[in-house]
């Protein structure tokens, strides 16, 4: 049996809003699970139900073999890092870390030992005596993590902890969280709406939309093999290009090109998805892209342009190429690197 087990968990708010629909999920011990999805998709609600901060309307949550539906948050032995850190403003860093331990009746020497160890690990030993208001964003973030680590809980819960940091710090903290989790080895759930964060942190990823897990898998599985239009559009940066097309007798016909011998028995209106990085420039390619805008990132270029009536089609070209506005590029799709979705249901059909 897995470490954390969610069975048909449903959340309906008193006003009738259904935030989470019969979600089932198993997380293994030591695993880093990321919930990713747009805001309002129910990912935070799911996390808060694990923490015990939201009641569970239906279903069961088992942690370490024990049903925790009715267990008080203080007794679940989970630790949470909040988006705004929720540091205790009137206590210094030391007491912020020590508070949870004090409440558990641990003796003073042990607390001091644990707090100092955690502070060392997070490199916050120098400001244990400071109040949170005297710390920078990154330092506060560390204190919030320290407060979680020091208790040595069964599970870490992160509720978008990086979204209050500036871009550079966010990348740095992302790395540190991952390293830390590997070092400490505690099972973790991380909620984010940022797909890059999700891809880089996760051992496994749950893409959530409208209270339903759309797809569950390792980041690379999900990137390579999205099961639905939503997942395909959400994971990957820049976003996947979508074109309207028709699939008939294994032949796909789009605006001005055709692909033959497609492995699918589906017939009807479909959406064709192509990632910008899965295009290559060739002579007499399938697609003729009229360049409208080039974003030069150094390592590569993001080329946006028009194919007939389709606007903002994106192609990622190597950085050493010079492409100018007004050029016409001839592009081919890398072999089998395209995704076909049923237009009405959004389900993958190839």
């Amino acid at each position, binding site marked *: 049996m897995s470490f954390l087990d969610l069975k048909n968990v449903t959340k309906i708010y008193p006003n009738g809003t259904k935030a989470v629909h019969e979600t089932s999920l198993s997380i293994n011990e030591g695993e880093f699970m990321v919930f990713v999805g747009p805001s309002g998709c129910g990912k935070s609600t799911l996390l808060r139900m694990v*923490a*015990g*901060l939201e009641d569970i309307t239906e279903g069961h949550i088992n942690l370490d073999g024990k049903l925790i539906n009715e267990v*008080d*948050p*203080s*007794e*679940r032995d*989970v*630790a*949470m890092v*909040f*988006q*705004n850190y*929720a540091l*205790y*403003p*009137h206590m210094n860093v030391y007491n912020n870390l020590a*508070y*949870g331990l004090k*409440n*558990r009746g641990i003796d003073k020497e042990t607390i001091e030992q644990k707090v100092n160890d955690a502070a060392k690990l997070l490199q916050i030993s120098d400001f244990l005596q400071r109040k949170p208001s005297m710390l920078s964003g990154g330092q506060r973030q560390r204190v919030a993590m320290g*407060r979680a680590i020091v*208790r040595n809980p069964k599970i870490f819960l992160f509720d978008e902890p990086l979204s209050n940091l500036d871009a550079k710090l966010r990348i740095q903290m992302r790395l540190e969280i991952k390293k830390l989790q590997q070092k400490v080895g505690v099972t973790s759930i991380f909620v984010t709406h940022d797909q890059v964060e999700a891809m880089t942190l996760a051992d496994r990823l749950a893409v959530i939309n409208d209270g339903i897990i759309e797809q569950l898998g390792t980041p690379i599985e999900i990137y390579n093999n999205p099961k639905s239009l939503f997942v395909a559009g959400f994971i990957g940066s820049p976003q996947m290009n979508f074109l309207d097309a028709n699939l008939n007798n294994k032949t796909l016909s789009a605006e001005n090109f055709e692909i033959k011998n497609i492995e699918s028995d589906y017939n009807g209106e479909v959406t064709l998805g192509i990632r910008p990085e899965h295009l290559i420039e060739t002579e007499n390619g399938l697609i003729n892209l009229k360049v409208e805008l080039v974003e030069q990132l150094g390592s590569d270029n993001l080329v946006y342009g028009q194919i007939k009536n389709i606007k903002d089609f994106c192609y990622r070209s190597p950085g050493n190429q010079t492409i100018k506005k007004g050029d016409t590029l001839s592009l081919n799709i890398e072999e089998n690197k395209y995704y076909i979705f049923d237009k009405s249901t959004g389900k993958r059909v190839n």
Partner: protein
Amino acid sequence: MTRLITSGFSHFILFIGILIMIVPVWMIFASSTHTGLIINTQGLQMFLGDSFYENYLRVLLYKGGFFKEITALKMFLNSFIMATGVAILSVITSLMAAYALVYFRTKYATLLFWMIFVTILVPLELRIFPTYSVMAELNLVNSYFGLIVPISASAIATLFFRQFYKTVPDELLESAKLDGANTWRFFIDFLLPLSKTMIVAMLIFMFVFGYNQYLWPLLVTSSEQYWTVVMGLKMMSGSIVHRFAFVMMSMVPPILIIIVLQKHFIKGVFQDK
């Protein structure tokens, strides 16, 4: 140059204001240091006389009242007990009431709060007879308890604490919960220290409120042993200089409280920033 003139002008206005506030107080103080004869023959005095100790000592130790049972010193003690009692008790009750209103998921919390709040429209004077009869039934007439308790529920303080609690982020409560704090611990370990500044402000406010009470103590005490300073101002008989001295002294406790507590008050305000 124009700036100098405008700032000079506003300083002038402020100076006039200060004079209007200070001069009457000074005149009473100066007059209270003269003998009654001088005041009666020459009117109020602007300069200090030489009867300061004589007048003030006599007022403090003179046994006044109809039965000659009470000294001004005892009145100060009574007032201090009453005002402190009112301040502490009303802060405690308001803190707890606000806590329940904001954090316990009471169904009609808002309605309940407004019901508490409208009691502001019902001053003590309006409910003074029923309140008195309750106190009389409970045999609490002529006691400190009877002086303090009926005026120790403050809707204003409840309002202030409630509004403050509402600004405390929910994550703080949630985080505390996960850290193993129960309802009581959250109140003691979080809300009390966080509202320290406001508690001090309310203590000052309620102390002055309790100290200034006149009608209620007048009604609920028949024994002179429980006279308060404000009652004494009215009841004190004697020479005009003694009354002046008493008035001067009656101003000291509220001012002292403000001076003593203001330090914490201001410190709190700046620390939070």
